[in-house]
C-alpha cells in the first residue's frame, strides 16, 4: 500500500530505519514497502539519511596515527605498480598489425582444424591403449591398488607422527618461555569477526625472543606473512612467519629490546622477497 502523505508513524519508521535502529523484522518490512514504490516513505527516508550522514560531524576530529597514512601510501603505490604491469602485459598481448585479416582467419581455421585432428588422434590412441592395458593387466591392477593403498596408509601415519613430534617441540618452546620471569603473551586476531586468523606471540622479554604460533589463512603463491611491531618511533619488521600446508604458523624470531613500548603488532600479507614497510592487507593485529 502506497502512502499519500507522511504520517507520524511513517516518519518514525523512516527515522529509525535511517539510524539503523529498527529491528531486523521491521527493517525488512520497511524495505519491502519501499520496493513497492512508495514515494512518500522514500522521500522521508532520504531526508533522514541526510541527517544521519551529517550527525558524524558533531564528533571532534582526532588525528589517526601516522603509520596508517604510510600504510595507505604503500597500498596506493602497490596498486599503481600492479596497474602498470597489467597495462604492459595487455600491450604485449595485442596483435602486431591489422593487415591481412583474411590470411590470419585462414591460418586460424587451419590451426583449429589441426588441433581438432590432433585431439581426435590422441583420443583414438588413448582408447586403444586403455583397452589393451585393461585386457592384459587386470590382475596386476588389483595387486597394485592394494600396494598403493598400503603405501598411502604408511605415508599418512608417518606424516601424523611427524606432525605430533613438531607440535611437541613447539609446546616445549612455549612452556620454556612461559616459565621465564616477565614472559608476555600477545594475541593477534583478524579484523573481521569471521576471520580464521588467530595468532599468539610468546615473548621472552629478557632473552629478546618471540615465538609466534597460531593459524592463518593459507598464503597464496608468491606471498608470505610478515610480522611487524609499531612503536612511537615507527614500524619495525619482526620477521617472516613460516606456515605449514595446513595453515599452522610456528616461527621463532628475535624480539625487540627490553623496555620497548609496543603500541601494536600487525601481520600483513607481503610479496615474497619482502617489503620494507607493511603494505596490504592487515591479516591480524593486536593492541598492547
Amino acid at each position, binding site marked *: 500500500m502506497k502512502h499519500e502523505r507522511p504520517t507520524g508513524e511513517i516518519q518514525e519508521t523512516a527515522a529509525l530505519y535511517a539510524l539503523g*535502529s529498527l529491528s531486523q523484522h521491521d527493517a525488512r518490512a520497511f524495505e519491502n514497502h519501499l520496493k513497492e514504490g512508495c514515494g512518500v516513505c522514500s522521500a522521508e527516508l532520504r531526508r533522514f539519511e541526510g541527517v544521519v550522514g551529517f550527525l558524524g560531524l558533531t564528533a571532534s576530529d582526532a588525528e589517526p596515527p601516522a603509520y596508517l597514512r604510510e600504510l595507505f601510501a604503500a597500498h596506493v603505490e602497490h596498486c599503481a605498480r600492479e596497474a602498470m604491469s597489467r597495462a604492459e602485459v595487455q600491450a604485449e598481448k595485442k596483435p602486431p598489425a591489422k593487415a591481412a585479416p583474411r590470411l590470419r582467419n585462414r591460418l586460424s581455421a587451419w590451426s583449429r582444424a589441426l588441433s581438432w585432428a590432433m585431439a581426435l588422434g590422441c583420443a583414438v590412441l588413448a582408447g586403444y591403449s586403455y583397452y589393451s592395458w585393461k585386457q592384459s593387466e587386470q590382475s596386476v591392477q588389483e595387486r597394485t591398488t592394494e600396494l598403493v593403498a598400503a603405501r598411502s596408509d604408511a605415508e599418512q601415519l608417518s606424516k601424523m607422527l611427524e606432525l605430533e613430534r613438531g607440535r611437541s617441540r613447539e609446546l616445549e618452546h612455549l612452556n620454556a618461555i612461559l616459565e621465564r620471569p616477565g614472559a608476555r603473551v600477545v594475541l593477534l586476531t583478524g579484523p573481521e569477526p569471521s576471520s580464521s586468523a588467530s595468532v599468539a606471540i610468546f615473548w621472552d622479554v629478557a632473552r629478546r625472543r618471540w615465538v609466534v604460533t597460531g593459524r592463518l589463512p593459507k598464503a597464496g603463491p608468491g606471498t608470505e606473512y610478515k610480522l611487524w611491531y609499531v612503536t612511537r618511533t615507527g614500524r619495525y619488521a619482526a620477521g617472516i612467519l613460516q606456515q605449514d600446508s595446513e595453515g599452522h604458523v610456528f616461527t621463532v624470531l628475535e624480539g625487540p629490546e627490553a623496555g620497548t613500548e609496543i603500541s601494536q603488532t600487525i601481520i600483513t600479507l607481503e610479496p615474497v622477497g619482502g617489503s620494507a614497510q607493511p603494505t596490504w592487507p592487515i591479516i591480524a593485529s593486536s593492541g598492547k
Partner: protein
Amino acid sequence: MCPFQESDVELSELIQKIAAGEAPALLSLYDASSRPLFGLILRITGDRFASEEVLVEVYKLIESRAGQYDAKQALATAWVLSIARARAVERRRQIRRESPRAERMETAATEEGEGDSQSTPGPYSDDRKRALAAIESLPPEQRVAVELAYYAGMSPGEIAAQIGQPRAAIKTRIRLGMIKLAELLK
C-alpha cells in the same frame, strides 16, 4: 541550498576518481577526511586500537564501493560518514559482546571521547559548526535519544531500558529530534 556543498565537491570528485581506478585519489581522500572519520569512529567505539582497525576497513570499503556512489543521491561527506558510522557501530557491538566491561560505554557514547578537544580549522569547520548548532538546539531529551541511537547504535527498546523511559516516548523523541535536525540541515 545545502550548507555542506562547499567542502563536498572535492570529496565527491575524489570518490569518482577512486571508482575510475585512480589509486592516488584514495590517499588524497584519506588526507581530506581521515581526521573527522577517525574522530567519529573513536567516539563510537571508545577504543583507540579498535578505531585504527575500523579506519582501515572504512577506506577499504570506500575503495570497493566507490563505483556505487551516486552524487545525485547523497552528498559525499554524508556518504563517507555513513560508512564509517555503520562500521564503527558494528565494531562497538562486537566489543560489547566480547567484553562485558564495555557496557559502561553506553553512557560515554553521548559524551566526547578522546578526540581533539579543540578541532583545528579544516575543510569541515563550517559544516561542523552547523551540525553542532543543530544538535545543540534540540531539547535535551530528544538530543540524548538521537545521540544514543546514532553513537551507540541502540534500538528504542535499549535506550528505554538505559534511561528508564517508556519505549513509545523514546520513539517519539527520536522522530521529533530527527525532523527538527532535517529542517535545520536543509
